[in-house]
């Protein structure tokens, strides 16, 4: 099953590259550097998707104490952090030629950076607790706090950057994207989601093997 996911992810990534470079057109204002978007945007979507999975798994663990739920939560939070790291790094690389700077305290970059640090702290905590069962319990509580904090972070940072105008919606409506670009974006999202699922599945299996080794 995991290997199948791996192969599908590989195919998806190839498809994503084809869409991103072959099918999608050269963007009007930014030029070809805009193609970084097909890497940058799906990464954060996949990250937040895995954090949601981690959140649900954490609740399931606290409710039912199934070790499989804890393994899923741990793996999901770890993989999500990896994808978030990719998002931040590619965002900086995209920012340099387009904004002239590697980093700016723009609303999205800042919120993602804060969420990244939150989940890094989660990994730190799990690494620091030796007792496995306690690590699972505490990790579950922390990932619940972190996941529920994500919207708070986003709202606060967004309002922080837009000064005097608190928005009534989630975000101001983004300009409509040409169909082709949207399709390429979605294909890349599907590809990265498959990669994420593959990583989570494999990591969860390894966690099971680790537990067995220590038993």
């Amino acid at each position, binding site marked *: 099953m995991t290997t199948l996911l791996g192969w599908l992810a590989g195919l998806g990534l190839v498809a994503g590259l084809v869409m991103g470079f072959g099918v999608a057109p050269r963007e009007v204002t930014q030029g*070809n550097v805009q193609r970084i978007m097909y890497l940058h945007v799906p990464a954060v979507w996949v990250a937040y998707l895995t954090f949601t999975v981690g959140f649900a798994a954490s609740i399931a663990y606290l409710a039912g104490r199934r070790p499989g739920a804890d393994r899923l939560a741990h793996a999901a939070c770890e993989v999500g952090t990896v994808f978030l*790291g*990719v998002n931040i*790094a590619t965002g900086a690389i995209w920012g340099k*030629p387009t904004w002239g700077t590697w980093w700016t305290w723009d609303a999205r970059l800042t919120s993602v950076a804060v969420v990244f640090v939150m989940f890094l702290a989660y990994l730190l905590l799990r690494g620091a607790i030796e007792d496995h069962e306690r690590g699972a319990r505490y990790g579950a509580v922390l990932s619940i706090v972190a996941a529920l904090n994500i919207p708070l972070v986003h709202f606060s940072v967004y309002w922080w950057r837009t000064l005097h105008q608190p928005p009534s919606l989630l975000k101001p409506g983004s300009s409509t994207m040409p169909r082709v670009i949207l399709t390429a974006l979605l294909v890349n999202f599907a590809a990265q989601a498959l990669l994420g699922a593959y990583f989570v599945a*494999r990591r969860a299996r390894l966690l099971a093997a*680790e537990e067995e080794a220590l038993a």
Partner: protein
Amino acid sequence: MPDNWTFVAAAYALAALVFGGYWLRLGRMQRELAAARTDREAVRDDRASRSQQPSKTGHPRPEPASRPPLQP
């Protein structure tokens, strides 16, 4: 605006490095765990087989080597 292909290449290369690196790390963990497991099984099989063999010295008790060491 110029195309900045170097930045595009850098971004994709970095992503490949991170994802590839994570994938390799998973592979390494898997190998280490598999090695640890075969080691444990080898020790277990070794102990099991030694306790079943007839004693070399004629004693009815099991060989000293197959017994757990005395605690100080």
